[in-house]
């Protein structure tokens, strides 16, 4: 017998055992099934009205999405993530879901759980997703939840969805967020999350609020800015995780090098996203019209093999960026990126003070900076990292 007489089927890892030896062209594709949502969250960067006929009319059909899924599987993808908006708002969700699963794709689902019905729970029980659903929790009580969702009755529906997931033994995890309405519930949320059988660690709590991805509403952006927690509050949430300092210093040690003028020092393009209207984006957030590829005009393979590599060669030209972000050893710790620059400033290469302030607060907290020092001023950043690591690691 070849190799040895040891015969086995074995459990594949999350990459199907493929990543190290011979990675496929595409491993995961994110698909936003819709931007419509049955919530109207105060902080949301994406959602359109759940009843928007205009948004619905422009969305890819089930047939077009199934074709994309088929292309993804042909390129070697093991997983597809359905997100939104609220993906379960689509009447044809079940058809799309079954198509993905019959192609042998794992399905990752982001949802608010309000539309988890007995029918959907039975479907997920019979045809498992092969991944954990991620449910965002907007508050632990009706008052706080609906202060965020701005939809009467949404809390009761969310709770019913959670109960159904538990009843049908559908694996899921929960995520929270830091808003004025939830600020006093963080401990309660973490304690409740700890009772969910599939939670392996403390739940993620989003503290950074992003402006509207499509730059479509000054009014909503003004509201989001008002809701943003201070850098100190952001830090206090991070500090709830005992290993946060150690992990953050370790991360900076691995990725601390200043990025230079290449715009995409992040992983943009490695996990591409398709928006509800058939445009491939380098990531979920980047919707600048010059950085998207129409999949109605070309194939997923062309987008991945030709378009994305070309995009990743883009360089910054903004002097402010070149003098700050491009030479800042904290850049990879910072949420500034072309997508966020676009939402905040309408360009791809403008520093974003909100993220810069948060990053500098963290850097000071973990001992990388002192006082009014700025990351881009530090020439001996390698020594700083080594010193912080020797203290914490």
């Amino acid at each position: 017998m070849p190799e040895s007489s040891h015969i086995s089927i074995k459990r594949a890892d999350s990459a199907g055992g493929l990543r190290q030896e011979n990675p496929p062209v595409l491993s995961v594709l994110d698909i936003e099934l819709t931007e419509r949502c049955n919530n109207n969250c105060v902080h949301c960067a994406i959602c359109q009205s759940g009843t928007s006929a205009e948004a619905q009319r422009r969305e890819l059909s089930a047939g077009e999405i199934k074709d994309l899924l088929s292309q993804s599987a042909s390129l070697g993808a093991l997983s597809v993530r359905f997100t939104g908006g609220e993906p379960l708002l689509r009447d044809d969700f079940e058809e799309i879901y079954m198509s993905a699963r019959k192609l042998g794709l794992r399905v990752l689902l982001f949802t608010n759980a309000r539309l988890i019905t007995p029918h959907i729970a039975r479907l997920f029980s019979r045809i498992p997703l092969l991944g954990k659903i991620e449910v965002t929790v907007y508050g632990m009580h009706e008052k706080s939840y609906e202060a965020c969702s701005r939809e009467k009755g949404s809390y009761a529906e969310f709770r019913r969805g959670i109960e159904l997931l538990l009843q049908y033994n559908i694996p899921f995890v929960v995520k929270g967020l830091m808003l004025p309405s939830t600020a006093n519930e963080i401990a309660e949320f973490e304690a409740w999350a700890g009772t969910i059988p599939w939670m392996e660690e403390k739940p993620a709590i989003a503290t950074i609020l992003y402006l509207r991805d499509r730059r479509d509403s000054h009014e909503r952006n003004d509201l989001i800015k008002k809701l943003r927690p201070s850098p100190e509050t952001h830090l206090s949430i991070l500090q709830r995780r005992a290993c946060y300092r150690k992990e953050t210093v370790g991360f900076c040690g691995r990725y601390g090098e200043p990025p230079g003028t290449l715009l995409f020092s992040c992983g943009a393009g490695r996990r591409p996203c398709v928006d509800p209207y058939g445009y491939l984006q380098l990531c979920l957030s980047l919707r600048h019209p010059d950085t998207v590829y129409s999949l109605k005009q070309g194939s997923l393979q062309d987008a991945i093999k030709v378009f994305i590599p070309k995009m990743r060669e883009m360089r910054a030209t903004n002097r402010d960026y070149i003098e700050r972000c491009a030479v800042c050893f904290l850049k990879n710790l910072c949420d500034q990126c072309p997508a966020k620059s676009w939402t905040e400033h309408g360009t791809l290469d403008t520093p974003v003070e909100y993220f810069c302030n948060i990053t500098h607060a963290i850097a000071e907290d973990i001992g990388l900076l002192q006082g009014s020092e700025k990351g881009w001023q530090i020439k001996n950043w390698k020594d700083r990292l080594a010193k912080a690591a020797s203290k914490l690691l």
Partner: protein
Amino acid sequence: METDINLDSCFKPSNDVVVREVMGKILIVPLTSGIGDLESDIFTLNESARSIWDRLVKGETVRAVIESLSAEYDNESGEIDRDVTGLLKELVQRRILEKITNV
């Protein structure tokens, strides 16, 4: 689940799984529940198991698979018989393969 292996049986992938070949590897992806031990289980085959799998899904009987492998590799101790039937039992128990006919 009946797992006695009749040497004259043929097997095929069941409708409870999706079998894919990605970058030269066979991936067995559960479609229905209860195939894997964990909710996220996807299976792959090592090289030896792959050589048995390829023959089985081409429609060879278990006996033909054993004979063909025995012609290729040493089987004095009957190890190949045990390997083939052992693998088959696991695949059938997990509802990955199902019997299609008795010849």
